[in-house]
């Protein structure tokens, strides 16, 4: 009897445990998430951000290899540090939002890289040009939600962001640091 009970209990536990851990994040709370960037203009650090973006997410930290993420950024929602800059960067020589309204990131691989850390690679497409990006994703559990954060540096020249008189990097630097903080929520 006791033996049977123990076996039954163990059986229940082994089934129940993975189930309890199988939290798969499927949505992102946009009001608690942000995508920011930072660049240098003649040695002066300037912060910016994108106010509108959408995500498609399937991320179970326990099964990272199956994870998938797509992020679409509405480039017209840019805050480039000043209203004058906002008006400028949506224009033809920068993002050209009329022809390329969105920047997209699609993950290609997610690998565990330590406790609550993952190596992520993906394809970033801006202004019709696609480049590989890689970064370390940090996962911070917050109750049933999880904060997913990370950052990487892109070269604006790779995407021809800033053409013509802006193409040189002496005024606006080539390196643009992109950071994100996404509050992910579980789904069924």
């Amino acid at each position, binding site marked *: 009897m006791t033996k049977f009970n123990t076996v039954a209990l163990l059986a229940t536990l082994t089934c129940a445990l993975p189930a309890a851990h199988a939290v798969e994040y499927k949505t992102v709370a946009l009001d608690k998430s942000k995508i920011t960037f930072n660049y240098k*203009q003649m*040695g*002066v650090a300037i912060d910016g951000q994108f106010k509108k973006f959408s995500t498609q997410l399937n991320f179970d930290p326990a099964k990272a290899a199956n994870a998938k993420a797509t992020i679409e950024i509405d480039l017209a929602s840019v805050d480039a540090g000043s209203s004058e800059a906002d008006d*400028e960067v949506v224009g033809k020589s920068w993002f050209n939002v009329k022809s390329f309204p969105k920047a997209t990131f699609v993950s290609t691989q997610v690998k565990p890289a330590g406790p609550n850390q993952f190596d992520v690679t993906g394809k970033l497409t801006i202004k019709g040009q696609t480049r590989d990006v890689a970064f370390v994703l940090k996962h911070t559990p917050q109750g049933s939600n999880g904060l997913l954060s990370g950052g990487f540096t892109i070269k604006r020249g790779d995407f021809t962001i800033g053409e013509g008189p*802006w193409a040189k990097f002496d005024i*606006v630097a080539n390196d643009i640091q992109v950071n994100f903080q996404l509050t992910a929520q579980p789904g069924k």
Partner: protein
Amino acid sequence: MNQLSHDHSYTPVAKALHWLMAALLIGLLSLGFYMADLPLSPDKLQLYSWHKWVGVTVFLLIWLRLLWRLTHRPPAYPASMPRALQFLAHGGHWALYGLMIAIPLTGWLMSSAKGFQTVWWGVWPIPDLLAKDKELGHNLQEVHEALNWLLVLLISGHAAAALKHHWIDRDDILTRMLPQGNKHD
């Protein structure tokens, strides 16, 4: 006794600071009014940086100049000059000193409020005294501009007064600030 020769002319340091700052201020004023209405371009950003860098330089020089002014008594006004005009001249000079402090200060503050830190010569970051605040940045810009119009007015009055002393009153007010001025005394 040898103080007497100084009584008629400014010290070489005071003269050098006066003319250096005259050149810098006229340059900054022209650049400031010119660049503000330019459409955004790399050149505009470059001009803004230069304006800020030279502005910070003037802000540092003015303290040096004030220190010199307070430790080296300038030559007295000619006895022929009416009391009221002497008073006006003094007031005008202190107003100029005040503006030479207030104008770079408002420029620095407006830059901070607009979210652009000033990095002197692109190398030395100057602390932001204000957090980013669009509305405040706009207001400070208005103050910066208004004070500069006041500076234009005062500099014009200052130059006109110097010329009036030279050509109408025929005293040594102008020549004692010139590089070779009043050596014969």
